[in-house]
């Protein structure tokens, strides 16, 4: 038994080292004074200062945040509706098609999603730019929200909402006062997931974008193709820090929310 736990310790340690070392190295080298990314020449924050003056990167970051805020919010509304349909409406015309359209985009390669949405916007004569990227992100992230919320709704006790209906609450009111507070942690998690997926997306944005709507991943990608630079390390470090803080806050909020619903 003793031998096994050593083996476990080694495999878990190795696993975490593999997962985290590359990111730690990336962060360390963002503070490197040298322009050569692989030679350490002392501590410096000059690349962060340089970032603050790089208007193209700042513009791209702003576009990315606006796209992510819009698409995550709309996707959460649509995805929650879709989850309700999947869980509560066992039988209606085209249910198989509906659930297929929820699951298929999740496993569909990004290149196909991007290509097909671009062709739609071209067919509709839609000017490509901020809105096409935002709509494209909304429609692929809503499926992820639907799956996350669906798993929480499956364990929701429907009799709670029925009691509210019996007491005369209109259906929308019953949903907002009874069901939504209970499933809220899942809805919030869905929003977070949609937000980060949108923040992260390169391929679908590249297909559906137009003039003036370069997102941060597109900017990073075009620079990475030219080589590794400390500025990109600095951008990546900031993004990693933001996401880590966001996930930590979300997990604390989720835990308090969970405790609140358990207590209720």
């Amino acid at each position, binding site marked *: 038994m003793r031998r096994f736990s050593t083996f476990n310790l080694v495999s*878990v340690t190795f696993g975490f080292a593999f997962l985290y070392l590359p990111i730690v190295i990336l962060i360390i080298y963002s503070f490197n004074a040298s322009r050569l990314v692989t030679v350490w020449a002392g501590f410096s924050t000059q690349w962060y200062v340089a970032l603050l003056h790089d208007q193209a990167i700042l513009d791209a970051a702003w576009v990315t945040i606006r796209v992510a805020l819009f698409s995550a919010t709309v996707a959460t509304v649509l995805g929650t509706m879709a989850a309700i349909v999947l869980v509560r409406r066992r039988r209606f015309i085209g249910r198989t098609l509906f659930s297929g359209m929820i699951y298929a985009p999740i496993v569909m390669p990004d290149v196909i999603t991007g290509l097909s949405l671009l062709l*739609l916007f071209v067919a509709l004569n839609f000017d490509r730019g901020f809105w096409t990227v935002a709509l494209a992100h909304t429609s692929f992230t809503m499926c992820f929200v639907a799956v996350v919320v669906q798993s929480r709704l499956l364990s929701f006790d429907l009799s709670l909402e029925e009691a509210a209906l019996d007491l005369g609450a209109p259906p929308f009111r019953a949903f907002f006062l009874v069901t939504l507070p209970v499933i809220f942690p899942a809805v919030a998690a869905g929003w977070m997931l949609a937000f980060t997926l949108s923040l992260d997306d390169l*391929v679908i944005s590249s297909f559906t974008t137009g003039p003036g709507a370069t997102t941060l991943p597109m900017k990073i990608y075009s620079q*990475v193709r030219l080589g590794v630079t400390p500025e990109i390390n600095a951008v*990546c470090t900031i993004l990693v820090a933001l996401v880590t803080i966001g996930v930590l806050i979300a997990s604390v909020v989720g835990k308090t929310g969970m405790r609140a619903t358990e207590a209720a």
Partner: protein
Amino acid sequence: MAEKERTSLSRRVVTWIPYAWLVVFFLIPCLIVLKISLSQTALAIPPYEPVFSTFADIRDKVGEFSLDSFALLTQDSLYWLSYLSSLEIAAISTILLLIIGYPIAYGLARANPSIRPYLLMLIILPFWTSFLIRVYAWIGILKPEGLLNQLLISLHLISQPLAITNTNWAVYIGIVYSYLPFMVLPLYATLEKLDVTLLEAASDLGATPLKAFWQVTFPISLPGVAAGALLVFIPAVGEFVIPDLLGGSDTLMIGKTLWHEFFDNRDWPVASAVAIVLLVALVVPIVLFQNAQSRAQGAK
């Protein structure tokens, strides 16, 4: 009575809004891809000759559908080689992920229950950071003058820097690194539920730990193995960013071929035909799998 009508009205609204959205932004785009894959290439903007522009046209023009793009896919070996090489790279990566992910999932499942939630969160956390950043992090490590080669040379393990970037090995490393949480989590989910008394029974009956593992633990974890393998194999086949940034010009993957066909050659019909074949090859089995699973759940 009025209440019931209102209930069914709100139900209908809640159903039809996401339904309409998915039809407009998923189903119709897929049909457009199909339509354009059946058009002729044209030197114009948009660079294809539409087969039909209104529904009245459809009947007259059905005879004009062109299978040229699909014919090209069968004739030009680039496309076949891309497909085969995508499947091969995805399969090798999946096997590597199993070999690397299984011990990690096993160790997590045997860890002290009080620290398990934190360990799990540490596994998931990198998944939230940008995919592009995680791939980028490896370029600095793997390139000829990168940190891995510096380390190996200073340890006198090698005398010449290894060429890892621009080879398939860099692509395997990138896929394994990016997809590891998707493999570990389903494996962990099945291994965590494993009843330890089964292993005690096996050892009481004289089985060595290794034998007990192969005859008890591994068969029980097979659903997790299948789920994890499916979860990483499918997206790996259509991968674009990893082969583009880490692989070389001879690393063929279908996602990369589609991208270049579209952005560099501007051959929309061929790009669409590539997409259709990839879609049929990947999505249809998955939807069938999903249906079978939900039917199994319904039966319970």
